[in-house]
Every structure is written in structure tokens, then in C-alpha cells.
């Protein structure tokens, strides 16, 4: 009997066995990291330092200053859009609204949407947009600010999440949702226009909230 005959049945058995187990989900930390050696209590310890989200400061739809302190110790989801965008943004907002609704009352989760058209998207315009979407700024901040700071922040997140700069629209207009943990480490990237991927995002949020 040839060897290849065994491959299929064995593979199927393997699948059956692995399906039976409840696999505990581990979310990887994304982005570049450094390996550092440290001496702790006289012993050499090797530690991995992951990229963390750097400090920032923007203004939300209710004129609140939103910065790294706003998300301190919380899980957050972030994306980049603009209110007059006719292509992928309405879909992204429809999907982010699902996340907003699903985690109603969850104070440990913050949603943070940046406008990449901050000159036109004034605080007033973001307020109008947020009202029409039916959301409150205590859980979902739509922020505007200095254009360069917003673009460099987009680049910062996307490089960490390894988004291709050559993708249509570049870093800033990728349609991506990024998931960041309580330690400001990037733990997931999802296509914000895909219902299936946003389903996975919602499971992953649940996971991080209880991590």
C-alpha cells in the first residue's frame, strides 16, 4: 500500500480530533519588536519589547481633548475616515456601529475614529455626523486635529499593524480597524468593511476585555 493512501484518512482523523477541543484563543501582539537582555536579581533575563501606541492629542465631536490618557488601561478600536467620503466610509461606520451597539454599557472599551480630512471635518461637522449616526461621545470619539499629526498617527498605527503603504489610499485610507489592548499593544487588524471580519473583531474584543 502506498504512503499517500494514508494521508487523507489520517488528515481527516486529525481534523476531527482538533475540532473536538475548545481551542483557547491567543491574540498575537503585532508590529516590530526588540529583544532586550536585562539583569534581574543577578540573573540574565531576555525580554521582548513590543511596539506600543505613542502619545497623541486630538479633539472629539464634543470638543473634549482626547489623548493617550483617554485610553489608558482600556481596550480600544481605532480607524481613519472622513465624513464626506462616498466610498468605503459609510460601510466602515455601519460596521463600527455594530461594535458600538454590541458593547453598550461597556466602559472598558473605547472607539476612536480619526478624520483624515480634518480641515473640512470641524468639531461641528463631526458632531452633526455623530448625531445623525446616533452615537454618544462617551464611548465613541470622532476626532479632528492637526492634519500632519493625524496622518503621522495613521502611519504609526498602520506600520505597527504592517499595512502595505501601496494599498489603495495608502495607510490612511485602508478601511482597517485596529484593536489595541490595555497595554497599548496592537493585537489585531480587521477589514472594517467586512461583516465577517468585524464578527471576529467583536470576539477578539471580548477576549481582550477578559485578558
Amino acid at each position, binding site marked *: 500500500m502506498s504512503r499517500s493512501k494514508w494521508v487523507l484518512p489520517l488528515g481527516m482523523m486529525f481534523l476531527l480530533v482538533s475540532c473536538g477541543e475548545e481551542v483557547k484563543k491567543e491574540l498575537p501582539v503585532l508590529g516590530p519588536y526588540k529583544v532586550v537582555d536585562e539583569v534581574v536579581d543577578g540573573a540574565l533575563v531576555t525580554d521582548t519589547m513590543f511596539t506600543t501606541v505613542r502619545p497623541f492629542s486630538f479633539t472629539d465631536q464634543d470638543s473634549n481633548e482626547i489623548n493617550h490618557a483617554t485610553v489608558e488601561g482600556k481596550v480600544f478600536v481605532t480607524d481613519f475616515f472622513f465624513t464626506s467620503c462616498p466610498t468605503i466610509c*459609510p460601510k466602515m461606520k455601519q460596521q463600527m456601529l455594530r461594535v458600538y451597539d454590541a458593547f453598550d454599557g461597556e466602559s472598558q472599551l473605547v472607539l476612536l475614529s480619526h478624520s483624515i480630512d480634518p480641515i473640512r471635518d470641524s468639531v461641528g461637522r463631526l458632531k452633526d455626523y455623530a448625531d445623525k449616526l*446616533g452615537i454618544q461621545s462617551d464611548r465613541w470619539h470622532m476626532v479632528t486635529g492637526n492634519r500632519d499629526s493625524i496622518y503621522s498617527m495613521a502611519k504609526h498605527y498602520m506600520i505597527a499593524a504592517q499595512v502595505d503603504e501601496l494599498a489603495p489610499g495608502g495607510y490612511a485610507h485602508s478601511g482597517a480597524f485596529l484593536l489595541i489592548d490595555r497595554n497599548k499593544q496592537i493585537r489585531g487588524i480587521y477589514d472594517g468593511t467586512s461583516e465577517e471580519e468585524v464578527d471576529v473583531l467583536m470576539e477578539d474584543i471580548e477576549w481582550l476585555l477578559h485578558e
Partner: protein
Amino acid sequence: MSKTLGNLVLFTLLLAACDYKPRNQGKVLYERNCQSCHMESGQGLGRLLPPVANADYVLEHRAELACIIRHGISGPIQVNGVTYEGEMEGNRQLTDVEINNLVHFILVDLNKQKEHFVINEVRNQLEKCSSTR
């Protein structure tokens, strides 16, 4: 064996051909030009984007749909009791026939209407709004 294969080929050909029916063209045009704003089943989004499925506005403005699609619409309108103050650009790239197929899809598939327009009616509507704008 060759008979089943023949049937299979025929079946695939038929399936492929289905896509070119006018009403399917309406669906494809909707997905390409409208879905990004009016959403996959025409439900709209909050008070930002009005629904085009099960929408009283669509039924009450049947005779204007072709013109709305070609020339856009702006300013406050009421759809299912909700006021929208948005702006939609026109779709000048769509031909009369394409607009006809889109209107067909919106009325029949998204608003459960039985009757729909024939191409000449849509052409008449479009002629009226081309002179006023």
C-alpha cells in the same frame, strides 16, 4: 460519462448567461454604484443615508427616480418619517438602459413592487429632467 459532462457544461453556460438578464444587471449596477452608501439591502444608515428599500419616498416619487439617479438630489427630504439633509451626486456615467435596470431593481427587488417601468417611460422621465437642468 460524456453526457453528464455535456450537461454540466450546458448548466454552467446557463448559469453564466443568467447574469446578463436586465434585472441582474440592475443588481450589479446597484452593488457597484449605490451600495456603498445605501447599504447591501438598501437599508441606509442612521440619519446619514436614507433607505431605498421599503421606502415610502421611493414609492411616492416613482416618476422621479430616473432623474434622481442621473442628476442626484440634495436638501431636506423625508423618508419613512425621518428627515435627511444630505447630498447625493448624479450618476451621469449610467446610460438610459442602465438607469432603467436600476429603477427596476429598486422597485421590484427592494420595494416588492410588481409593475415597473418600460424603457420608454424612463426615457421620457429623463428627457424632462435634462431640459430643466
